[in-house]
């Protein structure tokens, strides 16, 4: 089974070679096939290594002074490989069908880049040598940069690349600090020598790695590249880039904190928690007011990264304070959300990209009524939207619920200060969750529902089946991840256990509810009190190892929280069926339904512009968060007849908070400094000569007094 990794690599490489060799009109198909088949191999490899509990290692060649470039697939890597493979499979099919929509480009070259990107994403996850890691990390960034720029917008790509480089350097320093301590560049070596890290070193490594990986992972304060880059990337590639590469930043943060730092400082967790939740809020805030579906999704990626990091931070805090089970739970929540985010974000980006391509408009204000024209796309996007808004029983709900519950577990902590940080994070996340619903109801309804707000929509048609298939696949996965948490959690738990050395499965999916007869291990009161609840009955009525996610507390408090999406789904379906059936039987069949024009208050001619726009929908958010958003109304223009105002035109400008606080000041500083230094080059040779003589004098002066 270990060969499967190699096989998947070979499939990807074969794809690249085939694209280069075979005629150009076949390249799309080849890319789709090799991308998806390779991913299947990868998925089976990763699942196998997770379930058979084998750690796959290999060494490549040696570089002097660096050591052997080695790769290793441990459980964490395997989990991330699963997440990557799940995204890669549909995304490569999608890319192959949509690549022809990129105008004026060498498509087969782009597909080669795409397949290489897949390879490098995998390499990032499996490399276990600092140098190799940084190398593939940055190559991956460059490949993304090239793919982003194939959308004809170099500034966004540039900013991404530049910030990414900052991140890479920060990571490099962090890793090198670790390596200096460990005297080796291999990950195993770093892991082995964590005990000798001084506190100062731990903090430097933490801050630097958090900064560096946070840039890729979309955390504040350096996430300004995401919205820029994602919104311009061609539809063909953005699902993969958004779904698979954002994870890598989070992978880095988890890897460093979980494996390379001794987890003795509670401050790391608190920082992760607070930064994560603030990131989430800022991300969703801007997503809510954005006008372009892709940009909305980009901001929402930031938000989800924030949620993931919040949960991870909670896990770190629990771990440092000795609550291992709670830590496992939070980490499961974090990784679960990461997996979910990959799935639904990929799905949504596919949908958003398809909308943009087919309707040829980027503005939500001009979309509308697409559901009738693209029913299936609309349906899949709706599933994505439901998932991302954490609506039960879809996957986003499970992980968001787990995250919130693990934040609520802060009751176990002793320190007041840490508790307060949990509360802050929880409140921010709750606000985020509320805004997410606002954001995505807006995004979905303004694009798919209501009436078409521009002419180009009228001609929009449903996309082909091959484009729909990946979306359908992801929608199904999103649904399954939602209703089968009892299968997913133990799987993730395999990756979590080595980190926290406590199983979340026994806590979250208690054996009491399994077919295994372990009821006698539990306090008898528990069994007696609760033997009539549905959860227990479910072990006989529903197939599976148990269906209820619940956390078991102490003896006096048997159940702390519980949730079962599969039960919810069944109950929901029963209720739905009953209601629909009854309504049909008793009422609906006797009544007629007439389709008439909308009720518009009797206006003579309701123009699309007069209906409520996406901008209007977001206006309350703008007003309430005006302190943060600072919309500037500028260029107000009025045209007036003699007596009446005929029209008012305003332009609204919103400079992103991060741009305002971080990016622009930095840019201005660099600009000013560079212009100041440029004055040095006056062009006059006399001046230049005077520099030389002054330098000489200064040097001599220094040496004179040395």
């Amino acid at each position, binding site marked *: 089974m270990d060969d499967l990794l190699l096989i998947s690599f070979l499939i990807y490489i074969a794809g690249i070679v085939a694209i280069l060799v075979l005629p150009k009109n076949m390249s799309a198909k080849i890319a789709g096939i090799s991308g998806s088949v390779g991913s299947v191999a990868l998925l089976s490899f990763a699942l196998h290594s997770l379930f058979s509990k084998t750690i796959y290692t290999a060494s490549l060649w040696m570089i002097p002074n660096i050591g052997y470039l080695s790769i290793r697939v441990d459980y964490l890597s395997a989990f991330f490989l699963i997440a990557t493979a799940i995204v890669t499979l549909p995304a490569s099919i999608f890319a192959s069908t949509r690549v022809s929509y990129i105008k004026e480009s060498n498509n087969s070259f782009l597909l080669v880049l795409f397949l290489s990107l897949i390879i490098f994403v995998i390499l990032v996850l499996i490399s276990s040598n600092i140098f190799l890691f940084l190398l593939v990390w940055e190559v991956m960034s460059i490949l993304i940069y090239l793919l982003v720029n194939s959308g004809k917008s170099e500034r966004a790509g540039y900013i991404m690349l530049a910030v990414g480089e900052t991140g890479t350097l920060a990571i490099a320093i962090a890793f090198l600090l670790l390596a200096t301590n460990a005297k080796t560049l291999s990950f195993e070596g770093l892991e082995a020598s964590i005990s000798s890290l001084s506190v100062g070193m731990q903090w430097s490594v933490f801050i630097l790695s958090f900064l560096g990986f946070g840039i890729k992972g979309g955390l504040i304060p350096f996430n300004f590249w995401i919205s820029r880059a994602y919104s311009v990337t061609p539809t063909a590639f953005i699902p993969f880039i958004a779904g698979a590469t954002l994870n890598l930043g989070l992978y880095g943060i988890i890897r460093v904190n979980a494996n390379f730092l001794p987890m003795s400082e509670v401050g790391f967790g608190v920082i992760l928690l607070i930064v994560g939740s603030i990131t989430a809020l800022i991300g969703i805030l801007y997503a809510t007011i954005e006008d372009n579906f892709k940009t909305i999704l980009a901001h929402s990626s930031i938000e989800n990264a924030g949620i993931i990091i919040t949960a991870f931070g909670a896990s770190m805090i629990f771990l440092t304070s000795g609550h291992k089970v709670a830590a496992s739970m939070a980490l499961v929540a974090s990784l679960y959300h990461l997996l979910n985010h990959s799935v639904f974000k990929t799905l949504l980006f596919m949908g958003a990209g398809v909308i943009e391509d087919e309707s040829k408009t980027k503005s939500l204000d001009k979309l509308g009524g697409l559901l009738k024209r693209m029913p299936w796309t609309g349906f899949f996007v709706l599933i994505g939207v439901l998932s991302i808004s954490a609506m039960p029983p879809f996957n986003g709900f499970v992980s968001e619920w787990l995250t919130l519950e693990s934040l609520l577990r802060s009751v176990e902590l002793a320190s007041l200060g840490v508790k307060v940080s949990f509360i802050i994070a929880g409140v921010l996340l709750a606000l985020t969750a509320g805004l997410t619903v606002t954001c995505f109801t807006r995004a979905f309804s303004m694009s798919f529902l209501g009436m078409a707000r521009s002419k180009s929509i009228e001609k929009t048609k449903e996309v082909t089946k091959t484009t729909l298939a990946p979306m359908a696949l992801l929608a199904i996965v999103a649904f399954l991840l939602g209703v089968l948490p009892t299968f997913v959690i133990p799987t993730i738990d395999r990756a979590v256990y080595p980190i926290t050395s406590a199983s979340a499965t026994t806590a979250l999916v208690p054996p009491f509810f399994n077919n295994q007869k372990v009821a006698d291990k539990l306090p008898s009161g528990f069994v007696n009190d609760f033997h009539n609840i549905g959860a227990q009955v479910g072990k006989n009525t529903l197939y599976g190892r148990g269906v209820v996610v619940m956390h078991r507390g102490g003896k006096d408090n048997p159940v702390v929280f519980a949730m079962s999406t599969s039960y919810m789904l069944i109950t929901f379906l029963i209720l739905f069926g009953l209601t629909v059936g009854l309504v049909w039987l008793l009422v609906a069949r006797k009544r007629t339904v007439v389709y008439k024009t909308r009720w518009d208050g009797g206006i003579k001619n309701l123009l699309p512009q007069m209906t409520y726009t996406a901008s209007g929908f977001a206006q309350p958010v703008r007003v309430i968060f005006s302190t943060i958003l600072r919309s500037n109304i500028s260029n107000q223009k009025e045209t007036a007849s003699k007596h009446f105002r005929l029209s008012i035109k305003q332009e609204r400008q919103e400079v992103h908070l991060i741009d305002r606080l971080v990016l622009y000041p930095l840019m201005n500083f660099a600009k000013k400094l560079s*212009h100041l230094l440029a004055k*040095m080059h006056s062009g006059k040779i*006399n001046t230049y*000569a005077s520099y*030389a003589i002054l330098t*000489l004098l200064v040097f*001599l*002066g220094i040496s004179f007094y040395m």
Partner: protein
Amino acid sequence: MSNITPLITNLNALAGGLFIVSTFGIVATRQIKASLKFFILQSIFLVISAVLLGLKPFSLDLMAVGAINLITKVFLLPWLLKRMVKKEIYTKREITQVLNIPTSLIIALILTIAAYFFSLPWVETQNISSVVHINVPVGLAGLFLGAYTLTVRREAVPQLLGLLAMENGAFFAGVAIAPDLPLISELALAFDILILTFVIGILTRSVHEQIGTTSIGNLSKLKEEA
């Protein structure tokens, strides 16, 4: 080294003084031709110093240095310049300098004093040879003033003379501190200086042809920021 007579020492000191004075002349004259003449004077004092130091104990090396310098700098170089950039030397007059003459002279003076102070710790490493006490500060001053010439003069030829003055300064120190430099290096050095003059001559001509001025200091097409 040990038995340098006081006469030679004094003469050498005199040559040093005159060397500096002529360097001041290179820095501060308006006439390009006069500047060239001061350079020739400076070279002559360098030759005198070399010869003086080479007299006792007799050093063929230093004599050769004197001879080479005499030939190259006093005769060949002006000839070469005349051939290459005749027009500029004899017709042009440098109207403006970067700094006016009194100011530049004051700064030059300061540089000279600085040179003296900077060289103090070096000459103290060799307490016997008193010529070093003259030649090193004077040479350093020559170097400084040559460099300073480059910063204040805008015309092409005076800039070349500045460069050459710097080398002269280095040599002036060199005759005292490195009297037994291998002859081949000396020859090569001289050859080097001639090529330098030649190349700069070509460039000056190109400047004149292409740009129409020899006022190099006013050229600033290549710079950052419009």
